[in-house]
């Protein structure tokens, strides 16, 4: 076995770290990190990834256990470790008001790179990161992808034996992310050990080795196939669905034999219970689906399985809501040539789409592409420079207030009042939406009940765990039974179980006739949508159902592309078009 020949660079032995009272941030984590491979440190926000990396750098002290990095005890010999590792913290650790070259010079001085070696090292790093043309540019003026490469170059100034990268994929478009991955992969051929922390499970699948964490505990240590093996043969796709796939999914999720299920384009992806052959699923689906076919297990399937399966398919929230009549068949949300200019920069360029009642529409694109701008124009937070938008038939220019009354908005960053309690926040939002008297009390009680927030009603919102915060944010957005729901990156960083729960509610509401506009950069999440628009550099470069978009980039080499493949292929095609 070659794996055993690789040297162990980091040994974690029963590592414990506490911050104040409550559950420890790290609870007895043990594992090895080896040279010459990429170790994925995988888990949702709050799992303990950053804490573990900081402990490895010696910048933090463990409360228990032993961490040995490059044969040094991290507790006692931090300086020796810091001299030998490369570390890129979140947000890359760059000085934004220094130029690319000045940042490199600074790190070279900090790490004591001899002057005579510098020209060669800088040349190599700048070539490697393709930043040669930008050496005079201030780091703050670089794109996300370029910042990330510069951060990597700074961490590599003195070829480290161990490279620690804390969420390098955040805030970067998928193309840059792939480029970075290739660079890092190259490094491993020289024997460097790389730790790549991520909340994206699809990134984890490409690692040589993973440490899967959740809520401070290590769930799995080993190769990605070793993890997906546990669900081998149990992952299926139900295809040829007639009628509503969301309603069918809700029924299937209540089946004991179904561990997990999500919408995947026109199909439903299922993880079956151990020893089940799928008969029960086929029976439940009855005439509503053609057949059950095997699918390649993914990391997320295994992760959910490991956490004991997803929640059931019932949404008490949706059940309590009256179904909306179909209406006159006009779209609930319309965008007609929406354009937004900031100075001479066009953030959104003639964006056009419409969303019929009871559908989910996704805006997919890298950060800074114009998703949020489009989104904000449609919920009346930003005045379009050109074009028009309508919500529930109300023109956003003339009747913005009317339109806003009919929509519920969940902002990208947690936007509730951290110093108010859960109950006070709900009460405040009820007031904002004009709920009064008995109805107000009734809706608040219902939100506390449906989202299981009652035990935390008097807690300060800022002290809630991420999953609960996210539930509360949804509760505040749907309290007044809006016709249209606007969700801006709603599940970014949350664990897959919370994400499932969230989508169960959304799916249920959609079944009742609520219309949803969602932005996301999660490829999986894009597949929950009925249709998506791919936004890139302010333009919509593709629009269609997830299956159509995937089919549009299928080739003989790649008959069954993933959503990310489709995304990258479509962006590349659009760039070639722009260049031509």
């Amino acid at each position, binding site marked *: 076995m070659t794996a055993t020949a690789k040297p162990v660079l980091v040994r974690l032995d029963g590592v414990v770290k506490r911050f104040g009272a409550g559950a420890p941030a790290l609870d007895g984590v043990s594992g090895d990190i080896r040279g010459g491979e990429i170790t994925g440190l995988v888990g949702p926000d709050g799992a303990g990834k950053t804490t573990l990396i900081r402990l490895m750098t010696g910048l933090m*002290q463990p409360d228990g256990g032993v961490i040995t990095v490059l044969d040094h005890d991290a507790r006692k010999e931090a300086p020796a470790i810091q001299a030998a590792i490369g570390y890129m*913290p979140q947000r890359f650790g760059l*000085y934004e*008001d220094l130029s690319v070259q000045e940042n490199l*010079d*600074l790190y070279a*001085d900090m790490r004591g790179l001899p002057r005579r070696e510098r020209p060669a090292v800088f040349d190599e790093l700048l070539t490697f990161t393709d930043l040669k043309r930008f050496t005079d540019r201030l780091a703050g003026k670089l794109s996300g992808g370029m910042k990330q490469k510069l951060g990597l170059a700074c961490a590599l100034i003195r070829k480290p034996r161990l490279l620690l990268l804390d969420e390098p994929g955040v805030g970067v478009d998928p193309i840059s992310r792939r480029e970075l991955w290739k660079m890092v992969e190259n490094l491993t051929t020289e024997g460097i050990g790389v730790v790549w922390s991520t909340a994206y499970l699809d990134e984890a699948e490409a690692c040589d080795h993973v440490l899967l964490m959740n809520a401070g505990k290590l769930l799995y240590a080993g190769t990605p196939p070793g993890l997906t093996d546990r669900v081998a043969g149990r992952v299926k796709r139900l295809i040829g669905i007639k009628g509503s796939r969301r309603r069918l999914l809700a029924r299937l999720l209540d089946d004991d034999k179904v561990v997990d299920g999500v919408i995947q384009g026109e199909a439903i992806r299922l993880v079956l219970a151990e020893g089940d052959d799928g008969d029960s699923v086929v029976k439940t689906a009855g005439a509503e689906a053609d057949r059950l076919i095997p699918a390649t297990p993914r990391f997320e399937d295994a992760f959910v399985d490991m956490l004991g399966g997803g929640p059931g398919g019932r949404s008490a929230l949706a059940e309590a809501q009256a179904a909306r009549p179909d209406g006159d068949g006009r779209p609930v949300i319309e965008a007609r040539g929406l354009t937004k200019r900031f100075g001479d920069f066009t953030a959104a360029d003639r964006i056009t789409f419409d969303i019929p009642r009871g559908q989910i529409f996704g805006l997919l694109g890298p950060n800074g592409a114009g998703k949020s701008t489009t989104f904000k124009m449609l919920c009346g937070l930003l005045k379009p420079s050109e074009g028009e938008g309508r919500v529930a038939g109300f023109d956003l220019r003339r009747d913005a207030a009317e339109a806003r009354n009919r929509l519920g908005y969940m902002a990208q960053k947690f936007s509730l009042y951290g110093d108010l309690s859960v109950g006070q926040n709900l009460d405040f939002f009820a007031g904002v939406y004009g709920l009064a008297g008995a109805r107000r009390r009734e809706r608040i009680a219902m939100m506390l009940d449906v989202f299981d927030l009652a035990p935390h009603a008097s807690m300060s919102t800022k002290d809630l765990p991420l999953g609960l915060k996210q539930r509360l944010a949804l509760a505040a957005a749907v309290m007044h039974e809006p016709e249209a729901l606007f969700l801006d990156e709603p599940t970014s960083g949350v664990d897959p179980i919370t994400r499932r729960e969230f989508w169960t509610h959304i799916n249920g509401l959609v079944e009742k006739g609520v219309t949803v506009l969602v932005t996301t950069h999660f490829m999986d999440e894009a597949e929950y949508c009925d249709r998506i628009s791919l936004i890139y550099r302010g333009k919509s470069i593709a629009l269609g159902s997830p299956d159509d978009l995937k089919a549009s980039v299928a080739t003989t080499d790649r008959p069954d592309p993933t959503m990310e493949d489709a995304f990258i292929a479509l962006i590349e095609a659009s760039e070639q078009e722009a260049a031509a």
Partner: protein
Amino acid sequence: MTTLRRGRVRRLTALIRKESFQIIRDPSSILIALVLPLILLFLFGYGVSLDTSRTNVGLVLEETTPVTLELAASFQNSRYFDVTVGHDRREFAEDLVQSRIGGILVIPNGFTADLTAARHPAVQVIVDGADPNTANFVQNYAAGTVSTWEAQRAAERALTATPLLVQQRFWFNPELKSRNFLVPGSIAIVMTLVGTLLTSMVIAREWERGTMEAMMATPVTAWELLAGKIVPYFLLGLASMSLCVGLAVFLFGVPFRGSILALYALSAAFLMPSLGQGLLISAVTKNQFLASQLALLSGFLPSFLLSGFIFEINSMPLVIQYVSMIVPARYLIPSLQSVFLAGDIWPMFLRSILVLLGFGLVLFAVAIRKTAKRIT
């Protein structure tokens, strides 16, 4: 060993160079180090003045005799008053309420008779107690004018009885220009702004942007990180001070009677507690907003209010006087004022410098303990 030292020197110079680039490129440091001092200086140089120029008063002549007219004339000739003459105090009551005049002087009925009978004649002064500064001023100068007039009369009447005349003489600031002591004082405020406010904010910013963490994960030591901040902001503080002194002397004509050496020695000593406080605040808060609030509250305001800069410490309540003992600016400002207005008084300066260095030492010691290369 020497390679170790060379590494240390190189890291420190790199940190200082980096910081200098940042100072030059960051508008907010230019704002705090150069623009704010200018605004402050102009404010104290031109805008705020504790001197009072001519005050409007109403003069009520309840009887018109040669004697009262003579007294009225000396009020009218006074360089402290602009006098409007009337014959009934009710004419001026409304003006006093509206603050159009600073006081009413009443020469009452029977003044001449009292004077001739050598009974002590009285002049009534009515002032607005809601404005104590003006009230005091009017009261004192009215009394002064009356006694001068009496003395003159006495001198004219009986040349033999030489009246006792009080001759006031102010040393060091003969024109009693408040600008002359406010401007040196404001230089201390400027150094507090650079040393405490700016320094605490730039370090907090490094925590916020994650650059501090990235730096700490290199072989750099906590000492080097701190020195890399102290040296540039120390120099910036001195530069800012020099700019202020230049303006004070050449633009505002504030005298400079001491030596440059004393000026820089005092300023350098004062920057120690100032920087130490800045480092400590940023190490504790790690957040720009909180750092700036704390710096203003614990650095700027005490330097402003409790240092004797504007308010006399001796006239503060005893408790506050004790509190003012821990305000470093309190030890600088009197010395700085001496450098400008009196000259070098080394025994006083050395005492101030020692106290300031002592404060600096304590603050640095705490700051270094708090800035261990650790993230908590």
